[in-house]
């Protein structure tokens, strides 16, 4: 009992400990040149570079460009994905009509279709945003659909029995009932959007974390490469924290019941 409680108290400290241990290990083997130093700089060197890029370089500028791209794309893709997912989860007819198209369009390779999108929508902001939006559209759609389908049918009965219109069922049953899965979709969608944002920047932009990655490869400044990847990871952690806050706020009934 009390030993278990102590163990529980320890948990928040374990991830940092693992992180520090891994970094120390990497530091040692890179300093000893067990790994080729050309491609594996010591973590402290990466951290120093990260610090320099933040204070002297324009890392924060690039970061904010990426975050804006990511959020714009996610909002433009994720919200329609969620709405369509709710409708497809809810109505068998809509699902059966649209699902083949979703299935066919989802795997169309995004980055290699970018030129086609640019042919249609031009070389500017629109094309780039569309690709990012499309990337988050599908995880949101598929997760929301699965989430709606797991709602126990009795809740639909109750809502109908209380006289709810279709829109009200959507608002009061479909949406809250699938929130945990929508949020899993948000997490996946944001991360996918981030990946695709980076890929787009790698190809097309003069600003953003992806540009930095490209530049780091091109100039073989490996410390900068890792520093940039660490930045992407930090964005990922922020996404995680954001989704957790949403979870705590929107579905206390689900998290409290199960934590």
């Amino acid at each position, binding site marked *: 009992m009390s030993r278990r409680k102590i163990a529980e108290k320890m948990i928040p400290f374990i991830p940092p400990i693992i992180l520090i241990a891994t970094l120390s290990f990497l530091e040692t083997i890179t300093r000893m040149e067990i790994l080729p130093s050309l491609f594996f700089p010591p973590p402290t060197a990466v951290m120093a570079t990260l610090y320099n890029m933040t204070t002297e370089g324009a890392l924060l500028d690039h970061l904010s460009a990426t975050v804006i791209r990511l959020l714009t794309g996610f909002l433009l893709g994720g919200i329609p994905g969620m709405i369509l997912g709710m409708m497809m989860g809810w109505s068998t007819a809509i699902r059966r009509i649209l699902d083949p198209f979703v299935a066919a369009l989802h795997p169309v390779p995004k980055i290699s279709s970018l030129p086609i999108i640019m042919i249609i929508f031009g070389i500017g902001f629109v094309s780039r945003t569309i690709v990012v939006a499309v990337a988050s559209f599908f995880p949101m759609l598929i997760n929301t659909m699965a989430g709606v389908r797991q709602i126990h049918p009795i809740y639909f009965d109750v809502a109908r029995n209380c006289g*709810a219109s279709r829109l009200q069922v959507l608002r*009061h049953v479909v949406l*809250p009932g699938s929130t945990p899965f929508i949020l899993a979709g948000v997490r996946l969608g944001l991360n996918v959007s981030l990946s695709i944002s980076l890929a787009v920047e790698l190809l097309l932009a003069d600003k953003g974390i992806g540009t930095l990655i490209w530049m780091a490869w091109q100039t073989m400044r490996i410390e900068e490469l890792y520093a940039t990847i660490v930045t992407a990871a930090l964005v990922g952690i922020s996404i995680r924290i954001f989704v957790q806050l949403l979870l705590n706020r929107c579905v206390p*009934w689900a998290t409290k*019941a199960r934590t």
Partner: protein
Amino acid sequence: MGFRCKNLGVTYKTQNGELEALEDVSFSVSDHEFVCLVGPSGCGKSTILKLVAGLLDPTTGTIEFDSKPAGDRPRNAMVFQEHGVFPWMNVLDNVAFGLAIRGVPKAERNAIASRFIDRVGLSHFIDSHPHELSVGMRQRVSIARAFVNDPEILLMDEPFGSLDAMTKLVMTEELMGIWSRQRKQVLYVTHDIEEAIMLGDRVLVMTGRPGRIREEIEIPLARPRDLRDRDKSEIVKIKEHVWGILEEEVRAGLRGQHEPS
């Protein structure tokens, strides 16, 4: 505002073929009548309520509502056997749900809902979510929600089944009060024969699967009735009669020998 069920039949499609749940069920509930439904477990009582509520389409047969054009349905409120309390809403929002749907302003609907939450003894839990409630407390939320909706037809599926004897009595008194003050039709499923007799104007006794109405019993007790006085000889007599039917049906079912007779 009564309604008539005519030759209702329901066949469920299941993994293992079709299952005939109801066969040729006909009955009617007239204006301001309180009708109880008893029958062996799995005979189709919940199915009948869902048909009346319009949540399920009958495979055969029709339901007609008085003074409504065909196809239209008066407002009804169901107390579901499985409660169906929304896990994502607190007690207040669950109870006020029907009012919210009808667009009643927040302050007003919360006031109404609070009053009913009080009556079912959950005022301490008005902000709680369902997973923090006991089973009986959840059932009371579901009862309050149905009362708040103030329907023309009340459909109650074993509404007090998860309540202790005393709470059940209080809730039943509440129900009878509402029913006698307002002109409502009630269709009430119960497992408790005594209760059916105490509450109903009529008791419908069902056969085992596929469910049919085996007997309709008029209850000749005067109103208002004293819910605590259950030992009157009329009651005991009817009870023994119903008990006899049920015994036959249940024994047949348990022996797996029940075939359409």
